[in-house]
């Protein structure tokens, strides 16, 4: 075990918001006092030949970029107003893989590589950060970035507990940063339309929402201890970060942390749930609340909203295979179904819409670009970075849909019905459940920075 203490978790002084831009603005003002320069980013002049001028680009960094992060980058790099400049990862092999990808895209060798995220956060030229670490780092890496004045796109699940997503949401509010959760299905046409049908009343009175999830599972064992590699190869202590200590094994850092209690929140429930419950929240116009009660059985978890609508989280025995009897397999992974008294709509990653009832024919649509691409979601984030708007999956949307996941999973974990108060975000008369809203972090790492 390493006896090296983790680095201090809280940089003491955060740089002011977008100082690079402020500097550019001041400089430009000084040299051209007679020209009325807009202070809003999109107002700045475009470069020649349709290229976005450097002063108008969003300078992006990546923290913890493995396979999923590289997928995100693949769709973000083509954005003409985004310049990816640095990769931070505790693993040398991942740093080098991302640098190769980025340099190949831009046709130069300028992408820098760092091991310590605080080096990234201290750079005043960086506007935004893509956080795609393992789940156990999502919340803290995002909070530290926002405290340092960066806008954040975080992969989901954005936290491991109710406490973590509350701290994350509070940090985004406190530091006035743009935050987008990587629940990209809100930016995809088929899911948007399905939600529109539910929200607009086309299904009649909404009564039941179905969200597909994995059957929850977790493991407590440790993989066999192996000698720690040199810190430049893998910084194991930093990889662990806020998680309890355990000995190194190369499989964790290669992505096989999944399923381990200390590294994956809520027994695998939010892996799909962060998407599917989020979509149901949206369909039910419930972005400002969460279901009040949660009760688990062997097939899933039934949650009930204050308006009486039921949210049924269906445990799928074969999520990537036959999804009967809950869903039409043809709609693909991450399916959701909304049921009203005049019709139902089901959709999933294949982009198909399965409609029943009065609307079966009249409201059918077929979209040109179905799929799971995060491109539109990333674009929404970058637009908001510029306009200082709230993205479609901003911190409050994220907090509540994640809370619904965690509360549902806790009802499974505790084996009893739980009642949740959306106003105080606490379980009602249940000390045991309330204590499980948090997990102890390994000191000195703390979410409250």
């Amino acid at each position, binding site marked *: 075990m390493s*006896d090296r*203490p*983790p680095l*201090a978790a*809280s940089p*003491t*002084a*955060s*740089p*002011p*918001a*977008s100082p690079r831009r*402020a500097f550019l603005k001041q400089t430009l003002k000084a040299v051209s006092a007679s020209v*009325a*320069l*807009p*202070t*809003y980013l*999109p107002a700045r002049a475009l470069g020649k030949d349709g290229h976005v001028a450097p002063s108008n680009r969003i300078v992006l960094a990546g923290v913890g970029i493995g396979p999923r992060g590289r997928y995100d980058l693949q769709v973000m790099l083509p954005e003409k107003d985004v310049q990816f400049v640095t990769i931070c990862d505790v693993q040398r092999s991942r740093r080098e893989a991302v640098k190769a990808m980025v340099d190949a895209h831009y046709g130069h060798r300028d992408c820098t590589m760092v091991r310590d995220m605080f080096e990234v956060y201290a750079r005043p030229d960086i506007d935004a950060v893509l956080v795609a670490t393992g789940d156990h780092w999502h919340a803290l890496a995002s909070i530290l970035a926002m405290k340092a004045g960066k806008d954040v796109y975080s992969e989901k699940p954005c936290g491991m507990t109710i406490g973590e997503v509350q701290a994350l949401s*509070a940090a985004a*509010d*406190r*530091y*006035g940063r743009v935050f987008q959760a990587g629940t990209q299905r809100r930016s995809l*046409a088929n899911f948007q339309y399905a939600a*529109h049908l539910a929200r607009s009343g086309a299904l009649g009175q909404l009564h039941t929402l179905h969200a597909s999830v994995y059957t*929850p*599972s977790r493991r*407590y064992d440790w993989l066999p201890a192996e000698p720690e590699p040199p810190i430049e190869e893998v910084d194991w202590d930093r990889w662990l970060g806020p998680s*309890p*200590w*355990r000995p190194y094994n190369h499989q964790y850092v290669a992505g096989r942390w999944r399923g381990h209690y200390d590294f994956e929140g809520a*027994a695998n429930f939010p892996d799909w749930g962060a998407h599917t419950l989020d979509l149901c929240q949206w369909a039910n116009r419930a972005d400002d609340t969460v279901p009040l009660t949660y009760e*688990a*059985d062997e097939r899933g978890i039934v949650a009930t909203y204050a308006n009486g609508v039921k949210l049924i989280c269906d445990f799928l025995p074969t999520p990537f295979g036959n999804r009967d009897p809950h869903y039409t397999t043809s709609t693909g992974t991450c399916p959701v179904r909304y049921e009203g008294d005049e019709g139902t709509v089901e959709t999933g990653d294949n982009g198909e819409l399965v409609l029943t009832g009065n609307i079966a*024919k009249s409201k059918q*649509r*077929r979209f*040109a670009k179905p799929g799971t691409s995060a491109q539109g979601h990333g674009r929404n984030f970058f*637009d908001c970075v510029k*306009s*200082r*708007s*709230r993205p479609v999956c901003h911190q409050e949307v994220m907090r509540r849909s994640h809370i619904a996941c965690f509360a549902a999973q806790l*009802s*499974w*974990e*505790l*084996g009893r019905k739980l009642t949740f108060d959306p106003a*105080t975000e606490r379980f009602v008369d249940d*000390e045991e459940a309330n*204590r499980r809203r*948090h*997990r*102890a972090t*390994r*000191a*000195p790492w703390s979410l*409250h*920075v």
Partner: protein
Amino acid sequence: MKTTFLAWLLGLGTVIADPTAAWLATLQNPHAAIEAKARACQRLGEAGTQAAIPHLAPMLRDPALNTYARAALERIPGDAGRRLLYDALDWTDGNARLGVIQSLGALQIVEAIPKLTQSLDALPHSDGEAHGPLLATTLRTLGQMATEEAMRAVLTALRTEDPKRKSVAATACFLGAAHPRHRDHPDRQRSFYEAVRDHGLASDRVAAIGHLLRLDPTPSAFLTQLASEDEAIRQIALLTLRAHPSDALANALHEAFREAPVSQKLLLASALRDCSNANTVPFLADALPGTGDPLRQALFQTLSHLGGGQAASALLPFLEVASARQGLARMPGALVDSVLVQALRAPDNDQDATWLIQVLTDRGSADALPAFIRQAREGSPEVQSLALRSMRPWVGLNEVPLLVSLSHELRNAPSGEDALATLARACRQSDPPSAAGALILKELQTAVNPEGRRPWARLLVALGHEPALEEIARDLASETDAVVQSTLHLLGAWPNDAPIARLLELEANPEALRAMLRLIATSEDAERRAGWLQRIAPQIASEAEKKAFIGLLGGTVHPTSLTLLEPYLTDPEVREEALSARDSLEALKQE
């Protein structure tokens, strides 16, 4: 208990009769592995009782196990864990002590506040590096507890000259203001935020202004901050107002927009996306004419975000601008479809018609079908083609007669192939497809020459419409060899093996044989395939025919296949293929 977490544990066989006893024994065992002790702590956190608390105490000092022990102590209900953590403040150090302080905050053990404030007072002001983590953890924990005594200590730290102390104290102020005990006391919250605004570092001051706006979300407060010289303050005001939309604020933003310089207008246009009222769309529509970029782009985005028929009408005159078209494509609301469809009924020119069709296609709306049909009949050739391609997702049996008629009309036009391809799609999407097949068969029957018959025959073959088989096969009797060959080729594309019987009636010829070889491959019934293969076997002559024949034998698990394969095993032209087919048959049989 149903099939929930504990039942799941039992099902895994990981829990014995009294699981906690085993876990406690593990903690007491000096020879137990660290992993076993860690796991015992985790399990005790989920199912442990007060009896476990004393056994967790020694783990608090253990550098590898203290987080596991704290996690358990934070989760086991009751007071014993709280007492242990309070006491542990005196006998832990380093990171273990920091962890204990964090747990005191998590569990709101306010009895520890005097000890925490004393330790804070004892820290030297000038040696931030050495004591930084302790200072930060202690101050944040005091903020998390947020009693009067705790906040007094926090505010004192905020007013020092030490920037590190100031920064952490500001965070503690924010945590304190958010504490449930202050939730219903905005005056107290305001006092904490004002303290940070007045005494904090620059970035914390901005955060405090954001919090103060949330407490006092009036139009005048927002407008004041939106006009700030400080970009960071403008940014936080912009983001904060999104969470506090109101009719009054929307009206105030409209008013401010009228008088503002362009740079300010951009801010306000963006703000109106999330803070609008019934007047916003007409207001922005009035503002659009004569506006240049980048403000025009911002107004497009805001109108697109707000959606609805009025917003769509406002964007329609700007179809030539790509971002306006993108906005129309993304805009929510069924009324948007109506506006676009109405516009497509009488477009000003071909270019507008093209753009409208593209936007409606991106929107995926079935409501556009009648307008697409109209353009397919009346538009210029380019518009016709686009309309025909765009309507494909929506066509079915109802549209077949119309598309048949269009296919006749456009037979020699550039869009003729598009009409036929759309008709093919309509046939496939017909319910049932055989009803469309019957309509197309009539066209085939009335066609007067082979050239006129061919398009309809192609459609019927693609559909596999069996009642048409004999009618198509009539051309096999043609005196023109090209017609016969092309009919054979067409029948070979039938989606199942229905034409084989008819083809076997013909005198042997290579094109018919090729067609039959293709058709046999469509059958998944081994018995049926073997039967066909046996019947065509005498016709196999060329090397290419042999190879195709052997390929089919290799995929037909039937005793006949081996018999038919036999002569080829010694045929030097195809011996390798035959041996490979035999191996394949053996492997398939084993499966």
